[in-house]
């Protein structure tokens, strides 16, 4: 386990150790109400203590170098949340964080964290809303508090996790001052955000209700999870490994389970007979909002060198047509994987990219180096020169010029 701070950003992980399995229970969403209004202030000592800890975390988040500075995207996100909850949200703070893992989380103080890894995998506004609505469900139904109170009565499982985390933080040297000296509080935070299966089901149901009421296609909820599972399967297959549903792992990054997907799907069907007409998936709105960030989102994923997952991502996006950016990223997947024959695959993808109008400058660099590797020196030099012309202030101009001078 690395970077214990990272797990502050992960909320809503399923807690298999906490409660008996509730597979098969379906929570009907039509009778759920918000337990939180805009002026909510915690009253009892349990909750107030936790708010204090969350305030410190929020300060760290606000000033974190991982914070994404994207006002338009932030406004767009707030717009989706407000459409979902049906009111303005002056009490919520939304933070977009550069973190490649698929996650969004909600803290009991009204702080919402949305990872770029989540944005990278979502295909339309309805899918975005599905996860945001689920997280909002935890908040509006005060799940954190009730979850915490029930855990408090249990054994010291979480405390052991905390103490072990202290050992882990020390060993890797990645923990922070706060983490190292405050392991038990960390266990508290982690334990607080281990939602029970009941709460996950309730949040799912609440999320779908919100979606239906806001006019989003409710099938988007199970679609998100389906895509995530497909991606993980592609990743495993590529490595010759078996895909395992890891929702049992206490420290997993919020992966879905088949049970939850089924529940979501059932609930959506149920609702669709009741409520929604002219449901939208908000695809165009989503694509417009995410377009300025697409290159960054792809880069964050592809550079992790998980080829099965990367290809799944690139190929899903390419269903709308291959672009220069997508071909470039396809090439990058093969270049990093570097298995037998990948040099050719990469070279082909880079060549294809440079033939398209939106090929980024980096595609020309990659194309150039690929050609040089294949012994096509004049063409390679031409491509590298093209790169320098497009991007004279490139960070690696030094080595590219040097290469050209050889």
């Amino acid at each position: 386990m690395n970077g214990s701070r990272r797990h502050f950003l992960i909320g809503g992980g399923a807690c298999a150790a906490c409660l008996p399995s509730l597979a098969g229970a379906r929570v009907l969403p039509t009778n759920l109400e918000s337990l939180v209004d805009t002026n909510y202030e915690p009253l009892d000592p349990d909750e107030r203590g936790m708010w204090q800890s969350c305030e410190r975390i929020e300060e760290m988040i606000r000033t974190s170098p991982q914070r994404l500075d994207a006002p338009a995207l932030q406004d767009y996100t707030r717009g989706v949340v407000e459409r979902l909850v049906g009111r303005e949200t002056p009490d919520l703070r939304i933070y977009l964080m550069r973190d490649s893992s698929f996650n969004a989380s909600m803290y009991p103080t009204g702080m919402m964290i949305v990872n770029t890894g989540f944005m990278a995998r979502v295909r339309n506004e309805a899918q975005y809303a599905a996860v945001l609505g689920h997280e909002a469900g935890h908040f509006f139904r005060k799940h954190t508090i009730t979850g915490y109170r029930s855990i408090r009565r249990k054994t010291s499982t979480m405390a052991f996790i905390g103490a072990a985390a202290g050992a882990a933080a020390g060993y890797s040297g990645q923990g922070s001052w706060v983490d190292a000296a405050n392991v038990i509080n960390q266990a508290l935070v982690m334990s607080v955000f281990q939602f029970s299966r009941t709460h996950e089901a309730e949040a799912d149901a609440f999320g779908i209700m919100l979606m239906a009421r806001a006019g989003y296609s409710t099938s988007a909820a199970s679609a998100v999870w389906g895509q995530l599972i497909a991606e993980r399967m592609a990743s495993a297959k590529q490595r010759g490994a078996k895909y395992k549903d890891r929702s049992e792992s206490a420290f997993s990054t919020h992966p879905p389970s088949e049970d939850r997907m089924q529940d979501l799907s059932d609930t959506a069907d149920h609702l669709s007979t009741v409520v929604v007409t002219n449901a939208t998936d908000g695809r165009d709105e989503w694509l417009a909002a995410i377009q300025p960030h697409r290159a960054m989102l792809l880069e964050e994923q592809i550079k992790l060198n998980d080829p099965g997952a990367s290809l799944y991502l690139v190929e899903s996006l390419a269903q709308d047509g291959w672009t220069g950016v997508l071909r470039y990223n396809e090439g990058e997947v093969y270049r990093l994987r570097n298995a037998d024959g990948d040099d050719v695959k990469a070279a082909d993808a880079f060549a294809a990219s440079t033939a398209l109008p939106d090929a980024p400058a980096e595609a020309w660099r990659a194309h150039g180096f690929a050609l040089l590797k294949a012994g096509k020196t004049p063409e390679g030099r031409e491509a590298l020169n093209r790169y320098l012309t497009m991007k004279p202030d490139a960070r690696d101009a030094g080595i590219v010029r040097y290469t050209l001078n050889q």
Partner: protein
Amino acid sequence: MVTRFRPLAAVLLLCLGGCAATTHQASDGFTPPSGKYKLVVMKPDISVSVLTAGGLNEPREDWTLTARENILASLKQQQAKRGGSTQVVFASTTAANDDPKLAELDRLHEAVGQSVLLHKYTPYAALPTKKDKFDWTLGKLATDYGAATGNDYALFLFARDSFSSGGRVALQAVGMLGCVVGVCVLPPGGLQQAFVSLVDLKSGNVVWFNHLVSTVGDIRTPEGADAMVNKLLETMRDPDAPKKSKKS
């Protein structure tokens, strides 16, 4: 210049009967602040919790606020006796109050503070090049902050106190393991733990660092807060005083 390295776990062993122990570090040629000086307490991290039978530390807001008030009052009083005026910079609670430079300074101190804990207070993690030296710095970020705010010293303070509502035995053993691999985190069994580091904002150097572990005391009371502050900063008054491990 005088440093004393006392393996924390060994201290704890001796402390099981109920005692308080501090070990401090001071930089070469350290003289405690004197004359009329301006001290800023940086985002004091003070929290008091209840230790449940289930082994969880639940922070209590009311206890924490009281402890914070008491400690800061004790600190101000103590510093005033030595000629210093103390102001406190609290963690910002809204975006409008955020200060990026301060946040960066705070994070830098986190890294340095953790390094001090690791290399001066943990068995087997000592750095040979710092054997008889204590020379960590916060550099330009600190000196710039001093120049901008007119403060002479910055004090970083971390304090935790907890009161158990039940016994926790096995957990202590697991917590000790942390000491072995380099991070000596003491699982509170109703334990008081505090660190303080003093930064000279003219040089940017960490000139004083102290660590306190105690199984007695209650920082929710003014007397308890006074006791902790005194234990933490007492030997800063006279750097040549022999290091005392107080057993009470």
